[in-house]
């Protein structure tokens, strides 16, 4: 290889990948390193570091000879972990995957224009500013009879008004996040359903399959890869999601997931904020959980096969 061509290779590399590398380093790697360092300090409201310590982790776990791990989770941390697990699992399974799939199946079964209309309706929450979306939900679940839900329950079904935020906080954050999250699954799965060759549907019909059998034997097998992708992507997104939880529930203990806990201890106005090192320690654990979850799901959903090479059928 000549000197000029290797020089050109190097400059091409810098020109094409340079910006992406700078972006990754500045916005992904650097914050993780900063987080890692801060997690082992005593940084608080003054944003100064006086000592390097592991005491932040002591707020989350404490040593215990009874536990086989040698430590036990403290109440706040245990609660945040459980709430995160429940929130991610329910939102993901009920809405982001199942409801997204139902939306994709139903809107592709409709005539084209009608299907596009319904998909657009489901995309509206994603287009609306999050504050507007949260305000709408606050009105829907208002505990008095002004709330839309209670108007329906009281006047439509003769039931007593409910206080969702107080009595069913997890349901509220799962549903409100799910209604937004489902649209992404809907879009990806719709395009995947559209890319199934029409002949497969025709063949299945001629072979005697009804609508449900067509979904089971033709559509679902073709959605295996997009479903894997949505599962991995949305799990990671939900683990760190706190925006709508905060807007709807504030710093309520009943919905204090890991991401909410980190936010509350660092940047949230009012209660207990400014504990940067503590927040960094929580975030560090969240990063580890995210990595472990991603790797586990990568293995479970066989993403390697999806990412490895184009799946082109060779005749």
């Amino acid at each position, binding site marked *: 290889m000549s000197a000029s061509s290797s020089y050109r290779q190097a400059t091409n590399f810098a020109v094409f990948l340079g910006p992406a590398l700078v972006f990754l380093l500045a916005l992904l790697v650097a914050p993780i390193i900063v987080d890692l360092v801060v997690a082992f300090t005593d940084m608080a409201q003054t944003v100064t570091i006086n000592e390097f310590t592991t005491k932040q982790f002591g707020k989350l776990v404490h040593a215990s000879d009874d536990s086989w791990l040698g430590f036990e989770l403290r109440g706040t941390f245990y609660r945040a972990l459980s709430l995160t697990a429940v929130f991610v699992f329910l939102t993901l399974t009920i809405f982001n995957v199942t409801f997204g799939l139902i939306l994709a199946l139903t809107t592709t079964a409709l005539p084209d224009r009608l299907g596009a209309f319904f998909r657009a309706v489901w995309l509206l929450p994603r287009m609306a500013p999050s504050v507007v979306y949260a305000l709408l939900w606050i009105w829907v679940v208002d505990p008095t009879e002004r709330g839309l839900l209670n108007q329906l329950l009281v006047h439509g079904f003769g039931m007593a008004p409910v206080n969702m935020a107080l009595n069913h906080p997890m349901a509220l954050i799962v549903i409100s996040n799910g209604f937004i999250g489902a649209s992404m699954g809907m879009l990806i799965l719709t395009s995947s359903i559209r890319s199934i060759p029409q*002949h497969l549907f*025709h063949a299945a*019909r*001629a072979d*005697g399959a009804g609508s449900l059998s067509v979904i089971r*034997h*033709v559509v679902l*097998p073709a959605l295996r890869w997009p479903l894997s992708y949505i599962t991995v992507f949305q799990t990671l997104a939900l683990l760190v999601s706190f925006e709508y939880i905060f807007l709807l529930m504030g710093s309520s203990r009943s919905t204090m997931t890991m991401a909410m806990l980190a936010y509350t201890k660092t940047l949230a106005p009012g209660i207990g904020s400014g504990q940067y090192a503590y927040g960094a320690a929580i975030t560090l654990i969240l990063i580890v959980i995210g990595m472990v979850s991603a790797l586990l799901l990568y293995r479970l959903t066989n993403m390697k096969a999806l990412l490895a090479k184009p799946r082109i059928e060779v005749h």
Partner: protein
Amino acid sequence: MARVELQNVTKDWGTAKAVDDISLSLEQGEFAAVLGPSGCGKSTTLFMLAGIYMPTRGDILFDGARVNDVEARDRNVGIVFQSYALYPNMTVLQNILFPLRFKKVPKAEAEKSAREIAELVEISSLLDRKPSQLSGGQQQRVALARALIKKPNLLLLDEPLSNLDATLRLSMRMEIRRIQRELGVTTILVTHDQIEAMTMADRIICMNAGRIEQEGTPEALYTRPETVFAASFIGSPPINLLPGELTADGLRIGETLLATRGETNARSVKLGIRPEHVVANGHGIPAEIISAEALGRETLYTARSALGDTRFLEATSAPKYKAGEQVRLSFDAAHSILFDAERDRRLEGVSAHA
């Protein structure tokens, strides 16, 4: 095995007519080919028979019973697609067994049938493979087995050979014909390949622009085409079509007057003559060879004369004439076909020769 009828069937897509008032009937066990160019409505006709499309007007009858409103899955029709449309997530065996799932056939019996049909189409050793691990020809056999396992009333083949190479196509033509004869299933083959239609079918239905141009035996379509389209679509190399004028003295093409037999009312005509019927034997119309293409077994020449550019075939593997050489062309009245140029239909009882 069913007797199949189409009565004045039309299929509209918005304002466009894909199929325009066609009627035809197929006897039980018959093998018919629907032949025509892309967009002529042949696949739409096939999909209407399968129950995938509904006719806009007209009736489809199986054994005399109207099936317009019967869903595809209840028609008991086997269909082989151009792309084979095998289910990629299933093995060959699962693909073949798929139609029997919906017929509530006991598992052991279904597997026995699948193995029998696999034997018939010679894919017994491939049953555990996925479609992506098969060659085009093997996929085609699996598609055929899947279509046949439910003992269909009607077997529909939608350009099943067009993805195969030339050698495989030749053997698959015979294979499909053999299997069809063995099972005696009423079959419709849709194709744009005239050789496929002529070699496989008992009867050819030639379609153009949504209408049936002509139907009949392969031999009848070749030797007695009813329309200019049928004449030009069937035959390779294509028929020579020379525009001329019928006069009291004969057929005038340009400055040349050809002798005619039969009725000679003056009118515009097209003279059709197949390349193998034009001979360069030293007498007839003077012409200059402008190209010579060696086709292997024979040579195809194009010669320019007062009649226009005319193709003719000689049964020699090496070209006998070179471009620029002078020859004389003639043809026999028995092989000439005259078409009314205005109606594009064949004129009965009149012929020309040179």
